[in-house]
């Protein structure tokens, strides 16, 4: 289990990184935290000719607020996302999600951009990006572009990034709906989720749900926005029956696309995760919480 040979480059600027990627004709890989890439290299399931190590590219590790948007540099470590008060304050569901990423040793090294660009269907940060309509900023040979999260995740480990584009920043609007829930389930803590759910909800002065967003992950080839479940909740007063119905709707929506033999189980699990995430969101505290075993 030793990686195959590759050339290694450590650019200092985004421009250099992009031109290195372009020079390799699709045979280069970006090395950020390496927590998903290096295992694949060690198993010799990946054999890029060139690794472009972006860990020392200037200006990619920031965490700032721009108006009501959190701007997260692509090489920001997952551990920072988990602990930084700014994240907890503006996008608490994201901080909670980050806690579910692998183990602390993985979060110390793994990057936010790496997780988003790797697009694992069970990954937490992509799910939150979709939930909150994040914008993903990428730079390619022809300059910068911003991609809405809904247009970014294209399938299993697949995004709409071009091979010579580098993801530089994740822009996440601060949560407007302050109630939130984040749940996922795996056989062991730290494993990839078998299914998970992220939600934010807002309640108006009359006690009705004025905004509900639900994303399900781990069930399909990418995270899924459960629109029908959201629609079922919008405008209603929160009730146990209502949450049940929304959870069932979300599970139906998400499970439809699950090709694996245990899809029936995932449907049950998804329903449970959505139900519990909603319960957390509507539970006493306006701050909600994710389940931590």
């Amino acid at each position, binding site marked *: 289990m030793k990686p195959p040979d590759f050339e290694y480059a450590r650019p200092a600027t985004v421009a250099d990184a992009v031109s290195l990627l372009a020079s390799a004709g699709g045979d280069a890989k970006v090395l950020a935290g390496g927590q998903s890439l290096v295992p694949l290299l060690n198993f010799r399931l990946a054999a890029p000719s060139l690794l472009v190590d972006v860990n020392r590219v200037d200006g990619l590790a920031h965490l700032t607020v721009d108006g009501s948007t959190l701007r997260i540099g692509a090489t920001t470590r997952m551990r920072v996302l988990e602990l930084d008060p700014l994240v907890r304050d503006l996008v608490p569901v994201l901080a909670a999600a980050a806690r579910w990423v692998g183990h602390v040793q993985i979060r110390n090294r793994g990057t936010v951009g790496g997780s988003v660009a790797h697009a694992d269907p069970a990954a937490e940060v992509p799910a939150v990006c979709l939930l909150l309509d994040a914008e993903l900023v990428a730079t390619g040979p022809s300059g910068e572009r911003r991609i809405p999260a809904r247009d970014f995740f294209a399938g*299993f480990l697949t995004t709409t990034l071009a091979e010579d584009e580098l993801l530089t920043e994740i822009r996440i609007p601060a949560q407007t709906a302050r109630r939130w829930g984040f749940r996922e389930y795996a056989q062991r803590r730290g494993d990839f989720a078998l299914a998970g759910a992220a939600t934010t909800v807002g309640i108006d002065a009359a006690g009705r749900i004025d905004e509900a967003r639900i994303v399900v992950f781990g069930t399909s080839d990418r995270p899924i926005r459960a629109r029908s479940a959201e629609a079922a909740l919008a405008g209603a007063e929160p009730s146990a029956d209502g949450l049940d119905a929304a959870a069932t709707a979300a599970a139906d929506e998400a499970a439809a696309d699950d090709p694996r033999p245990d899809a029936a189980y995932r449907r049950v699990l998804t329903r449970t995760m959505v139900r519990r995430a909603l319960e957390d969101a509507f539970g006493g505290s306006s701050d909600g919480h994710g389940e931590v075993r």
Partner: protein
Amino acid sequence: MQLDHAFAVRADPDATFAFLLDVNRVAGCIPGVTGVEERDPDTFVGTLKVKVGPVGITYRGTATIVSRDASARQATLAAEGIEGVGAGRVKATAVMAVEPTADGSSVTISTDLAIAGRLAGFGRGIIDGVAKRIVGEMADCIRTKLESPEAATSGRPD
């Protein structure tokens, strides 16, 4: 592993079936396939580079049309590949069938896929994900080509 894919094409069933048997054109629709050469009318060699996210494995192999039934518009394609570097292997048998529909054809491709080597053991749905994606893109491409104006004439993959 069994992969079933079905899609509708706005094209004549016979033309669709003919397209499916034109290995060069179908190969042009499989992401990562290059260097296809004809050994005999039913046997082709080529290279398949599986590339999904960071996963990248190159297989060299052959594809053979092992049976065809023009009247039933059904054919079976067997393909086998060996990793260019490394000991892995892939074997697939695809049964393709075309049925006429009101506005064209419906195509079903049932693939029995066997992968050997490290990719096989590196679980958590990588293979499912990769295979599903390849077949999905192939189906999209076939449909697009069949429905494009030059579908009937062009014999070369782009």
